[in-house]
């Protein structure tokens, strides 16, 4: 079995990266290779890192409330980089009423506070397995 490669990125200006680090660590412990890009990444930087690292999944952590602005920009940058086939997931403080709108912008899953890391791990494993089956 190959190691899944996941990009964990924090777009925008909020500096609260504990959530991103907890997820990165949990995925590491689940046997995944996690590329962590650090704080304050622009949508272009995230798309570029996803392309160069050839990741299976991109995960964004957003706690600033700017998700309705940032997520569509990240998705746009990913599509522009020919990464439309790479699934995008979002974690952080996302009000329930925004989830459907984010899905319309190409987000495959949103994980709010209280989600267990096991749930996220299993979801990512499912995404990776379906990508492998398609290849």
């Amino acid at each position, binding site marked *: 079995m*190959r*190691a899944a*490669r996941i990009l964990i990125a924090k777009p925008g200006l909020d500096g609260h990266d504990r959530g991103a680090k907890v997820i*990165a*660590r949990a*995925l*590491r*412990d*689940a*046997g*995944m*290779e*996690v*590329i*962590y*890009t*650090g704080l304050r*990444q*622009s949508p*272009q*930087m995230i798309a*570029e*890192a996803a*392309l*160069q*690292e*050839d990741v299976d999944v991109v995960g964004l952590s957003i706690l600033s409330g700017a998700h309705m602005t940032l997520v569509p920009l990240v998705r746009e940058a990913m599509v522009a*980089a*020919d*990464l439309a086939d790479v699934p995008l997931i979002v974690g952080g403080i996302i009000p329930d009423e925004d989830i459907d709108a984010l899905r319309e912008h190409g987000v495959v899953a949103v994980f709010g506070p209280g989600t267990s890391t096991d749930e996220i791990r299993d979801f990512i494993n499912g995404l990776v397995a379906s990508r492998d089956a398609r290849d």
Partner: protein
Amino acid sequence: MTEARDTRQAELVAAVLAGQRRAIARMLTLVENGRPGKDAALAALFPHTGKAAIIGVTGAPGTGKSTLVNALARHYRQAGRTVGIIAVDPTSPFSGGAILGDRIRMSDHSGDPGVFIRSMATRGSLGGLAHATRDAVRVLDAAGFDIVLVETVGAGQSEVDIARTATTTLVVEAPGLGDDVQAIKAGILEIADVLVVNKADRPGATQTQRALKAMLELGHPGDRLAFFAHDSQLPLSVQSPHANGGANPEDTMWQPPVIATVSVEGKGIAELAEAIAAHRQYLEHSGSAARWQQHIIAQELIERMRDVLVAREIAQIEPDRLRAIVAEVQARRLDPNAAVHVLLEQP
């Protein structure tokens, strides 16, 4: 099915040679995961390699390798050269997972099409690089990058694989990590073509530089062939570059310079780049380059042969037979050495 795959991979090879970024990324994944078709793809890329200057950067964790790589890449970009970067971080021995965080320090190059950064996990390899790093370097070389910078995992004293991969190896030190006895111990300092004292604005930087210079004065192997000659498995005869009536060894031996840098401010980076260029020139003019290459090729062939032979032998061992022999060793009825001979005999 295989035919379709062959066509797809021929297209991928062509796209890598054209420098297409997504193709480079996919090729690196192919090489790293050892998927079917990897060998054919690498074979197709191989004739296009050998042009890039490969610079290895190693040193203890926290000495500033990633920041130095970032600063060096900026320097080379300003000089109009393209830069590929491979940054290696460790794989967890427990979960097989990894956190690859070297990009955090390299965000200066975001949006620059002349830079390509790829993170790699060691995946169980212990020499400071991943098993596939050498092949990954070749992919970037074939894709046309002028410079390939390879950053090892945070290295202790014995992770010296980088010296078998890079043309020029930088060993990065920082003030306060050890005294002059640390400096004369065997291992990583010996593989340095250039020694870098990073964070040179910190207290103790002058002492560190002095200790390293003193170490070099006590005698440095200088000739990297010694590094390979020591490996007794090499059947190639090693001839000293000074043996065939050449110039005075004093004139032809490379003395590693000690360069002080403050990577975050870009201080000392131009001097470092000059030292790297001088080392490359030395290799070319002294004639060591060709001989050195012969030895790393021989070394690589032996390593690859070992992999093939081991895989072939292991594939032939029946699990039940292995279990029985393990039980014999566990019960102290058979010693491990004898057990290997039993395993290698055909059942």
